[in-house]
């Protein structure tokens, strides 16, 4: 009885405390003043009935302060990653999975072809207008489907060659229907500052720029400028659902932001977020990392996530005390920088044969002195590793997943020029004419050309070392630079032998799966665009991988993984696919990866998590780390 009473009492207490929490919210002093002056409705009316509660990383914060940071150019990409990552879902802070965000809940049908999603009720744009499914439908109907608007359907919205269909159930409920199973749609549609973060546009505002709704508008330039992520932040009048909104933008110099009074998230004590009042973004031109370094050591940055050069870490760390900041080592989350993409559809058949020869690939891999690359290009702080997905990915979280990861990441990376030589000898790649370089098995000269994009000094340095390494085992190696267009054309023509893709990242099925299986005809498809194109078009275009080859099996394995409707099934399929990379590996070659990514954080700038993955913008850091709960400890 006593027990029961106690339980009831506790229950009542708990209930009443939630009720109280729901009814009274705190807000920033500046907003309270505006409320008092009648310029803003009270905080309870601005927040949704059930605001999203954000658990602070360290502690409940306090209001105030201006966050100073630097962005690399007028596209304000870094800034958008801070203020504009508000999609349907959001990555967990450690990127282990997704959590609800704009969507409060959703239901899939059994074969993963239909999903009904429920928008969080009461979210308001920063001008006070409510966010409804109509805002999303505006994007779909009036932008994507409108022929006059130069916008193609986003990835994931076309399945089996057919566009998804949308059905509005009510203001907050929407039903997606796909032609084939699309179980990862919501996750895939919630990556980074694009996808649903970009698609959720304020209809009431956007209409004035749409020719269909405003006869004075003749073209879609203005509309697109407000839609595109690279220009969106240039418009202070454009409403947002992010924690901060633009107040001023001076090209090449500065962008300033202030808190969104209608932001729809609170902390565990009912304080409306964000804590920080303003963001001040200086726009750099010229060599950004230099300015970051200089501003950092002078203590003029409160938190800087990107463009902190690894080489500057000693300098920045040595001045940390004087500058009153600390350096948190986040992870770039790259699997290779650079990544050596071997191409398997080559105009040069002899070379294609060699590429398909596992010993040749193994020789190339073990001939690379990865430690030296690490020392010279990354202060020894990166990890020498084979091409493999990141350890944080969901499929690696099981014991067998971890074991597989270890095996994969460490396969064929031991620097062993002698082994490389004997491997090459074993397949008949030997120096027959005595010029110091090996010939192909048929006796014709062998010269590998490694191509990359210009202006990435780290890649250039790496390739120069790589060239020395490969020449040392007798493989004549040339380096080549190509622009994007040249690369695309050459790749399709089978004229790129090995491409050194700069910093590469991928995430199982969610982010760029084509890096581990040739399934898309895109520039970053492993094995070559044509082979990916073949899979993507169901064999209509492109070039098939050789029959029975590991590439073909990778494509099959990918097919199994995407059609899996449960996580267990999917993870198992992924691990099976990765196994091919080990057994037949390396299929595509990694160098060094998982570079630490220094984050400069002012000492009193709190609630910054210890981990983050910044290389792929798909992961949306620091937006994923919930910058709205960052705060200045005023002491």
């Amino acid at each position, binding site marked *: 009885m006593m027990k029961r009473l106690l339980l009831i009492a506790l229950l009542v207490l708990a209930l009443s405390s939630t009720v109280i929490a729901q009814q009274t919210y705190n807000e920033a002093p500046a907003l309270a003043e505006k409320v008092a002056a009648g310029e803003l409705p009270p905080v309870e009316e601005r927040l949704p009935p059930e605001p999203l509660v954000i658990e602070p990383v360290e502690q409940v914060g306090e209001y105030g302060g201006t966050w*100073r940071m630097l962005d690399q*150019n*007028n*596209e304000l*990409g870094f800034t958008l990653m801070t203020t504009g990552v508000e999609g349907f879902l959001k990555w967990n802070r450690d990127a282990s999975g997704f959590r609800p965000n704009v969507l409060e809940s959703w239901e899939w049908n059994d074969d993963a072809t239909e999903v009904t999603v429920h928008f969080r009720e009461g979210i308001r744009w920063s001008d006070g207008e409510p966010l409804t499914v109509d805002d999303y439908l505006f994007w779909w109907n009036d932008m994507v489907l409108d022929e006059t608007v*130069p*916008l*193609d359907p*986003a*990835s994931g919205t076309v399945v089996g060659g057919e566009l998804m269909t949308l059905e509005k159930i009510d203001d907050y409920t929407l039903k997606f229907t796909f032609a084939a199973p699309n179980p990862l749609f919501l996750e895939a549609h919630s990556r*980074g500052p*694009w*996808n649903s973060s970009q698609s959720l546009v304020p209809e009431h505002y956007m209409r004035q720029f749409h020719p269909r709704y405003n006869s004075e508008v003749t073209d*879609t*330039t203005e509309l*697109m*400028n407000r839609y595109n*992520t*690279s*220009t969106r932040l*240039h418009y202070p009048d454009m409403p947002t659902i992010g924690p901060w909104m633009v107040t*001023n933008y*001076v*090209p*090449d*110099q*500065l962008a300033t932001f202030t808190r969104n009074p209608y932001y729809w998230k609170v902390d565990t004590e009912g304080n409306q977020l964000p804590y920080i009042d303003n963001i*001040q973004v*200086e726009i*750099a*031109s*010229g*060599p950004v990392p230099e*300015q970051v370094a*200089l*501003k950092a*050591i*002078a*203590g*003029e940055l409160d938190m800087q996530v990107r463009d902190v050069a690894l080489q500057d870490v000693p300098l920045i760390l040595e001045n940390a005390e*004087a500058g009153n900041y600390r350096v948190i080592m986040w992870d770039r989350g790259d699997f290779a920088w650079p990544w050596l993409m071997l191409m398997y559809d080559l105009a040069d058949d002899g070379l294609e044969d060699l590429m398909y020869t596992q010993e040749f690939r193994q020789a190339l891999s073990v001939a690379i002195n990865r430690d030296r690359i690490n020392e010279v290009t990354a202060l020894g702080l990166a990890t020498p590793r084979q091409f493999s997905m990141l350890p944080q990915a969901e499929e690696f979280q099981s014991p067998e997943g971890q074991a597989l990861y270890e095996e994969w990441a460490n396969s064929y990376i031991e620097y062993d020029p002698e082994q490389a030589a004997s491997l090459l000898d074993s397949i008949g790649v030997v120096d027959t004419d005595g010029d110091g370089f090996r010939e192909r098995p048929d006796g014709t000269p062998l010269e590998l050309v490694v191509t990359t*994009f210009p202006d990435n000094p780290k890649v250039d340095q790496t390739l120069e070392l790589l060239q020395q390494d490969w020449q040392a085992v007798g493989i004549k190696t040339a380096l080549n630079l190509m*622009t*994007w*267009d*040249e690369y695309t054309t050459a790749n399709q023509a089978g004229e790129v032998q090995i491409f050194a893709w*700069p*910093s590469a*990242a991928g995430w199982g099925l969610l*982010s*760029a799966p084509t890096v581990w299986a040739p399934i898309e005809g*895109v*520039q*970053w498809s492993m094995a070559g665009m044509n082979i990916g194109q073949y899979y993507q078009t169901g064999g209509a275009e492109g070039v098939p991988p050789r029959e029975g080859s590991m590439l073909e099996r990778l494509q099959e394995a990918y097919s199994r993984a995407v059609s899996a409707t449960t996580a267990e099934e999917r993870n198992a399929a992924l691990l099976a696919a990765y196994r091919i990379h080990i057994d037949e590996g390396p299929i595509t070659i990694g160098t060094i990866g998982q570079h630490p990514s220094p984050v400069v954080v002012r000492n009193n700038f709190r609630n910054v998590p210890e981990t983050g993955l910044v290389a*792929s*913008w*798909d992961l949306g850091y620091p937006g994923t780390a919930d910058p709205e709960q960052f705060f200045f400890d005023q002491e």
Partner: protein
Amino acid sequence: MTRYIVRRLLQFIPSMILIAFVGFVIMELPPGDYVSNYIRAQALAGNQDMVAQEAALRQQFGLDQPFLIRFANWTINLIRGDFGISLATRMPVSEIIGSKLGATVAVSLCVFILSWAIGIALGVYSATHQYSKTDNFLTTISFIGLGLPDFLIALAFLVLAWQLTGQVLTGLQSPEFIGKPFSIPLLLDFLKHLWIPVTAVVVTGMAWVMRVMRGNLLNELGKNYVTALRAKGVPERTVIWKHAFRNALHPLIGALSQTLAFLVNGFVITSVVLDLPTIQVTYLDATQAQDLFLAGTILTLIGFLVLLGTLVSDLLLAWLDPRIRFS
């Protein structure tokens, strides 16, 4: 006179169109265009959807049209006063150039005035005190100034200023003053930033002016009329400043044509290194990103200024020298 100026101005037009054309061709020659650069950057950052927009984007910017049509359209609009938009920021080029002009002119004018004033003063002093200790010292300094790349000086100043004051003086304003209306603290803040680029560029610019001034003045001072003036009992100050100096100005005025262009496009690297919000950096970025209309307009503007500078220097020379005026 007016007719002469008008005629000269009219002659500018074909030259400028030619300059703009060459400028366009140069930017057209490298493989790819703005869109492909943009798409690459987006792809490398992981924005895969953007890659699918390539054709649409090109269409939006009119880059899908043949080169000559694009150039013709741009030229016609240019004559109408419409410089087009910057592909990178989608803002009107005129707005971008307008927003940069203030800072550019402020820095350049300071550089110009100081380097010429100091250079001329030191040059005159050096020439009138030839072989003195000061002359030798100044000569040495000027040679070093000529040899030092200004961006190195700027960088050294920047780091020095940080080590001494703990402040980083990149740009021309502290962020809290950017875009704010004029005030005394804003001016002080501006001056605090201004000295680094100005000093760095003045050191090298001044050296040149000084060398030219010294050489010419020495040359003039050796001429007969100077002795004749002295023999007339004309005070030395008058001999130097009214007579020899004015005669020695020739080559400096001749250099004005390039100077005017220098005002908008000198010290590019210093601007880059110091992150100055000047048109130099805009031009460099625009060239590298193949931001066609922006770069084309700036190049045309610079070409115009060179032509204008030539005209001004011709007029000045004619005003200064009766031999030119009467021939």
